[in-house]
Structures are given as structure tokens and as C-alpha cells.
């Protein structure tokens, strides 16, 4: 049977002579933090259409977002400039179809979109549909379709698995001989080895080490074996790597990773980072013994654990009482490097805004507040990820510490949270470039 023999001609005579609507999206194969430009043409003037973005995650869940538009007098919709009248987002939102992605109706609950294999892209199917569709696309055939790829890694970046001197992680190296500035990339209490942000940072020119420090599979990285020395060893590994410029190594942390970064920087010994990016964390987590001790203390402290109306856990008040006790806080007054602090004021997981304010006060008192830049975003939650990751207000969470399975409330509203991700990332890249690439303080030490 020939390919052509099998297919039926399904288009009417009338449709045969009409030019099909055309949709283009640029870039066709961009990095995840690049803006997209979507344009639809050959529509009837002032025609109602729905744009839909569909993605199949690596966990085999379908995610989608959609926006309702009306074409102009020339039959064109330009997503970067036109107003979306409803759907997953409203207003002029060039990247709305990506950051407002949610699991399709009927999916498993409380999902979070994360990339495991950085060497394959996310594939987004962006389709145009006739009329304004109210979220149910089961019977809606598309007028036109385009496909774009979104990558966490640039061509040429290499991935090196690291498991030596008991450090466990993945090193991403930009192409070329280097030496490159280095970044220790730390995530939070969910544990495991999360690579995509390190891959993205390497695509921007930084040798980045995604470090695993809480694992349920690998017993050598048990939280009861690991203390601050583990992270210091990781930094030492980076600094002495032949492709890393030892004077230009910084730390990038989120959530618990931020607390680790602050602990290291405040120690002021020879392991001193060049700069710190600290997202959604707190200095009210002192690491004295093992990480296991830290988590045990968290539970025993007695701070308030709350749940919302959906029984999602709100942990932001757990360590709040510590802010009143100097002995429980990292001495941020001892930090000697520039620090970029980022927090969302709707963070339901950690008391990041209160901590940020307290840190400001401590650093003012100590006289090093000139090192601090604070960015606090309204209606923004805990998971401030690289743009344009879909905003997750709550999701399943398995603590690497005690394997408890709960649903955690992270907070934030989609539009504002997505803006925070976009804006903070731009400032982060600028901050890193300024302190790790163009600054010449490192050289003068030679």
C-alpha cells in the first residue's frame, strides 16, 4: 500500500483555494531562558482564534497552556504585542504560552515540570484553533501547527560525572580550554541530583558543578555522613580543576542550598567564594554537625507547621522563631563577598522575606551591607526557577531526609512569579558576569 494511496482527501473544494493560516515561532531551537516570538498570519481579519501550547514531559504527562486572541485587520496575531483575552493567562505576555503551562485536565495531581535528561530538548507543539476554546481541546482540530525545541544546554557543553573523593555530582564544562569561572550549584531539601540549572549556567560560560548532597539511593551521601566539609571539598574540587579559574568560583543556591552557601561564606577561611547567588533561603539554618542534625533540629524546634484548605503543607513558619535568636543564625556579618539575595513575598515554604530583612540588618550592623543586593518579588513563591519554567504553586514533595511524601505549598501567582523568574535570572546572569568574568580583583591577588 502506498503512502499516498492510504490517505483520504478530506478537504472541501472551498478550503482548497484558501491559504492556510501559518504559524511561526522563533527561535525554533532556543535555550529555555530565551524569549519566544510567535506569529500567526493568513487568518481572516478580526478572527477569533485560540493558541495552544502542548508538551509531553519525560514523566509522560501532558502539559498545556492556551490563550484567546483576535487577529488584526491584516489577519495577523503577534503574541509579543497583542493582548490575550483569556485562557491560561491574560494581557500582553510574549512568553505566556510557556510559563502558564499546567498539566492537562485529568492528569495526576500536584505535578512539577522538571527536566531530567539535559541532552534532549522539551518539544513544544504550538497550534492555532478556530474560535475561542474554553480549555477543552479534545475535538478541536488545529488550523496550523509549529514545533519548537527548548534546550537547557548549548552545543559544545560537556557533561562529566564526578564521583571521587566522596564528592558526588555532575560537572558541566563550556566548550574550549578555559579556564572558566566556576559555580557550585546547590538545590534544596528534595535532594537528588538536579542538573538542568548547572547545564544552563555552563551554556552561559560557567564551569558548573551540580552537587548531590542528599540521596536516598546512594548511601555514601547519606545526610548523616555529610557536613559542611562536604561542600567545602566540592568547592576545592572546582577550584583545583584545570579548566576552572580558581579565583573565580561562586556558589548558587536555592532553598536549603542557600543556607549552605551562607554558612560557607560566613566561615571566612581559605574556601571563600567569589560571590553568592542565594534564592529562597534563610540564614537561620546553621550547619554545625551533619546535615542530618540540621534537619532533626528543624523538626524538633517546635515552630508552626500549618496546612491550607487543601491539606498542603505550609512550612514557612517553622524556623521563624529562630530569627530572634542570634545563636541560631549564620553570622552574615562575616561575609566578605558580594551576595545577591532573591526572595518571593508569597513564599509559603521558608520565611525568606523575613530572613532577608534580618540579614540586611545584621549586615548593616556589621558594616558589610554594601556587599548585599536584595530582590524581593511580590506574589512570588518559593520555587524561583530559570525562566520560563511553569509556575508551580504546590506539588508532591518527598523529603530526602525522612522520605515523607506530602504535598507542599510553595506559593506565588503565575503571572507575577513568572515575571520574577524572568527578571531575577537576567539580574543573576548580570551579577555573575560582573563578579566572575569582568572583575579584575582576582588577578590582583596574584
Amino acid at each position, binding site marked *: 500500500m502506498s*503512502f499516498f494511496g492510504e490517505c483520504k482527501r478530506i478537504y472541501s473544494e472551498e478550503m*482548497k483555494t484558501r491559504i492556510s493560516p501559518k504559524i511561526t515561532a522563533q527561535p*525554533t531551537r532556543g535555550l529555555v531562558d530565551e524569549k519566544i516570538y510567535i506569529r500567526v498570519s493568513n487568518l481572516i481579519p478580526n478572527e477569533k482564534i485560540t493558541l495552544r501550547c502542548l508538551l509531553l514531559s519525560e514523566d509522560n504527562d501532558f502539559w498545556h497552556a492556551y490563550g484567546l486572541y483576535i487577529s488584526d485587520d491584516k489577519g495577523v496575531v503577534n503574541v509579543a504585542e497583542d493582548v490575550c483575552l483569556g485562557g491560561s493567562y491574560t494581557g500582553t505576555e510574549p512568553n505566556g504560552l510557556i510559563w502558564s503551562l499546567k498539566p492537562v485536565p485529568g492528569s495526576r495531581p500536584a505535578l512539577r515540570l522538571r527536566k531530567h535528561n539535559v541532552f534532549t530538548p522539551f*518539544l513544544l507543539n504550538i497550534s492555532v484553533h478556530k474560535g475561542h476554546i474554553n480549555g477543552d481541546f479534545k475535538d478541536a482540530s488545529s488550523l496550523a501547527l509549529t514545533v*519548537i525545541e527548548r534546550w537547557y544546554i548549548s552545543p559544545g557543553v560537556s557533561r562529566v560525572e564526578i564521583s571521587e573523593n566522596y564528592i558526588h555530582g555532575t560537572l558541566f564544562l563550556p*566548550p574550549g580550554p578555559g579556564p*572558566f569561572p566556576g559555580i557550585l550549584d546547590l538545590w534544596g531539601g528534595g535532594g537528588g541530583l538536579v542538573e538542568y540549572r548547572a547545564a544552563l549556567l555552563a551554556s552561559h560560560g560557567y564551569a558548573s558543578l551540580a552537587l548531590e548532597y542528599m540521596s536516598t539511593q546512594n548511601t555514601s551521601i547519606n545526610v548523616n555522613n555529610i557536613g559542611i566539609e562536604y561542600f567545602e571539598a566540592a568547592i576545592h574540587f572546582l577550584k583545583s580543576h*584545570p579548566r576552572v579559574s580558581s579565583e573565580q568560583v561562586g556558589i548558587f543556591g536555592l532553598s536549603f542550598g542557600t543556607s549552605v552557601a551562607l554558612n560557607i561564606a560566613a566561615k571566612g577561611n581559605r574556601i571563600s567564594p567569589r560571590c553568592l547567588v542565594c534564592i529562597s533561603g534563610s540564614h537561620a539554618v546553621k550547619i554545625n554537625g551533619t546535615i542530618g542534625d540540621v534537619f532533626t533540629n528543624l523538626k524538633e524546634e517546635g515552630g508552626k507547621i500549618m496546612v491550607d484548605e487543601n491539606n498542603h503543607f505550609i512550612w514557612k513558619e517553622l524556623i521563624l522563631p529562630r530569627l530572634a535568636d542570634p545563636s541560631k543564625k549564620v553570622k552574615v556579618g562575616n561575609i566578605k563577598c558580594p551576595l545577591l539575595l532573591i526572595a518571593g513575598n508569597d513564599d509559603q515554604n521558608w520565611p525568606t522575606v523575613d530572613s532577608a530583612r534580618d540579614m540586611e540588618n545584621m549586615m548593616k550592623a556589621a558594616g558589610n551591607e554594601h556587599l548585599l543586593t536584595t530582590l524581593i518579588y511580590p506574589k512570588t513563591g518559593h520555587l524561583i526557577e530559570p525562566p520560563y519554567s511553569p509556575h508551580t504553586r504546590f506539588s508532591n514533595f518527598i523529603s530526602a531526609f525522612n522520605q515523607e511524601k506530602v504535598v507542599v505549598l510553595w506559593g506565588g501567582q503565575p503571572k507575577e512569579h513568572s515575571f520574577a523568574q524572568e527578571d531575577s535570572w537576567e539580574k543573576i546572569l548580570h551579577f555573575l558576569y560582573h563578579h566572575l568574568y569582568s572583575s579584575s580583583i582576582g588577578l590582583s591577588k596574584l
Partner: protein
Amino acid sequence: MAGRMAYNAAYWLKTVKTGTLLAQNMALHERTMADMLSQRRHTPRVWARPTRALMDEPFQLEVACLPPHCPVTLRSTLCNEGNDLWEAFSHYVSDERGRVNVSKDESLGGSYVGCEPMGLLWSLRLAVGGRQPVRLRKKNIQTPFVVDISLFDGHITDNFNTQTALAVTTMERWYMAPGVRCIEVRENGVVGTLFIPPGPGPFPALLDVWGLGGLMEHRAALLASRGYACLALAYINHPELQLGSGMGISYFQESWNLLQSVPQVSADRLGLLGSCFGAAIFILMASELPDISPRCLVAINSPSGLLNPGEGNYLEKLQRLLPETKLDANGHFMIKDAILAFGIDLERSLQAGGIQCPVLLIVGEDDQCVPSLESAQKLEAQMRAVGKGHLVTKFSYPEAGHLIEPPYHPVMRSSAFNLPGQTVTMLWGGVGKSHAAAQEDSWRRILEFLDKHL
């Protein structure tokens, strides 16, 4: 300083099990690092945007963190499907901020000079000396070309492999956009590859042919990436073509019918796009065959003075031409004059007056393979004679040669070509920069023309 570096090297060699640097490279690296640090430099950065693009998309290339007024060499390399290495290089000097911007700055030497934002692509040449130059052809259309761009200290012209690059960036260049479907066509004797854009369609469609080189898919893949269902057709020099079938007019009629019958194709929006002999065949088809009614026709460097229906097959014609073919000073075949002589006989020339649709003629005036300019002029005259001169649009590029490819393709003045029984070096013509500019401009004109008429 040197002592510290030596310590680090020893530590690394003792303890690191992962990684791929050899000890010798470490020593070279140490020396270069020490040199660089002693001159108080940072690692320079070089980056290309976009890193993953289609072959016809431009890119920006910038260098930063150099000392001011520093001479540097940028070198592009491409390894074609694991076999041949292609390279190009150019010389720049950083500005007072230590930056180089290839889109704005002038190259002072190398594979090209002057301000040429895409020069590192179109001036690529086979790096291995002593071999006949070949055209850059990709066998697997579905994977990208990977181009590395390296930065070197100073203005160097050879022995790149013995130097350490200061920085490197990597780009992928694709023929196919994501979602484009690639379907092998072997139906009713027709041999080709069909590229369909993503989506339900129906799409305007094109038949795409080239000269005597077998099945060339890359332009069809790009056109599908731009929204046209495109059938890249082989009609000669292909192992799967049934003997003799690729030559006759019925073959092209069959291809046309086949394309029309594809469900995703808008049956009344078909066009013809051809280069070289293929273009001449299309002109013949459009002019003489009533069943073939393209909405528009694009002919690139067509030798339409050559063909006539029923005159036998093209290989025979070519063989008859060979004894008359002159060689230029380098021993390269110059087929053009032979074809000119062939075509002067009026009885044999192709009558194009029967064409009913808009025609776009792309002419490289320095075409040394076919008399493109003369053919185009003759065609225009023929159409004017029947009152259809307004249908013809012509873009003629002085100093452009025969092989007008999609933009940024490496420019070849001559290259190896397989004739029956022998491989010769064929002279195509074209002068580097002008030919590259012609490729860029003509592609834009072609896409505009197709957008307007299809």
C-alpha cells in the same frame, strides 16, 4: 605563580579519575596559562547567537574580555559527517574595550576581508590540501552541521592544530526545523524525498530539482521549514532510478501528479523551483505541457538554450559536449562555451513562450558552467514576444557563479564533479564575497516571490 600551577597539575594528575586531558596537553596548557596570566588577561569569551539555527539564518558572533587593540584570529571548523574537515579563518583586532563583533568589525585578512558577518560560514574550505575541492553535501538531512568557532592569539594563517585556542564556541546549523516531516518517495517510478511542514495543512507545494548531481534534499528541507511542502526530485544519476525512466517528460508529469495528490498539499498551489538542467526541464514543462499548471516558477542559472523534447537523454547530450569542452588555466572544465555553441542552433532552442505563470529568474553572470545570462535573456525575449514579459522577474548578479545555493553555503569556484566515466574538476565561476551576497539576496527574493504567488 608557576609553582602554584605546577602544584595544581600534580594534584590533579594524582587524584582526578574523570576528564580527558592528557599530560602533554596539561603542560602546553600550563605554559599558555602562565603566558596569559603574566600578561594580566582573563579568559576571553567568544559566543555565537543563536547556537542552534537553520542553515539560512544569520548568526551574531562576538568576542569579549580581550586586551584592547589585540590581534586575534577566529577560525571556524566543520567536520562533515565524521569525514572531511572544513575550515575558514579571519583576522580581527579588538577595540578599546577588548571586544570584537563580527557583525560590525572588519576582517583584515584570512579567508575573507572586510565586514562579513557570515564570512566564517561561506568561506569554509576543505582543510586537507592536495585533494580536489568538493561541494559541501550532507547525507543525513535530519542532523545538523556542527561548527566550532575558535579564538586564537595573534594573526595566524596555518598550523592551527599546534596552537591552543583561547576560547571556543559551538553552533549547530540545521536544514530541518523541528516538526518537519521527511518522507522517502519511491512511488510509480518517482524517486525523491518529500518534506512536509508540521500541522494539518494544506500547504502550498513545490517540486525542487537540481542539475546532474542526483538527489539533492537540502533546499527542499529548508523550504519545508519555511512552510512549503516540497518534493526534492531525482531524475538522473541516482541508483534507484529505473533505467531510462528519469529522462522522459512522463517522469516529471508523474512527479507533478504525485505531489498534487498528497493530502497535506493544496492541489492548486503548486510551484516549480529548479537549478541548472532541472530548471530548464521545468521551463519546458511549464511551457509545453498543458496538464502542468504551476502557480509560479523559479529558475536558477538555467541553460534553457539546450533542451528540446524528444531529443534524447541528457547524459548522451553531455557526452556529445565533452570533446568540445575547453579547460581553463587550472585544468578545470569550462562547459559553458560548449553549451553556448550547442544552443546557437535555433532549431534546438527551447521555446518558453507557453509559460502562463510568473517566472523568477536568478542569474549568476559569472556562471562558467552554463550560459545563464544568455539563456535568461533569450527566455525574457521569448516571453515578451508573446506579450507575457510582465510575468518575468529577473535578478542578475555580477560575479556570482553557477552554484547559487541557499545562504551562507560555502562558496566554490570549482569542485569535483562526476561525469560518466571520469571525475573532473568543473569550473562553476563566482567570486567569493559577491557570490555569497548573491546567495543571500537571491534566497530572500525567492522566498518573497513564493510567498506572493503560492
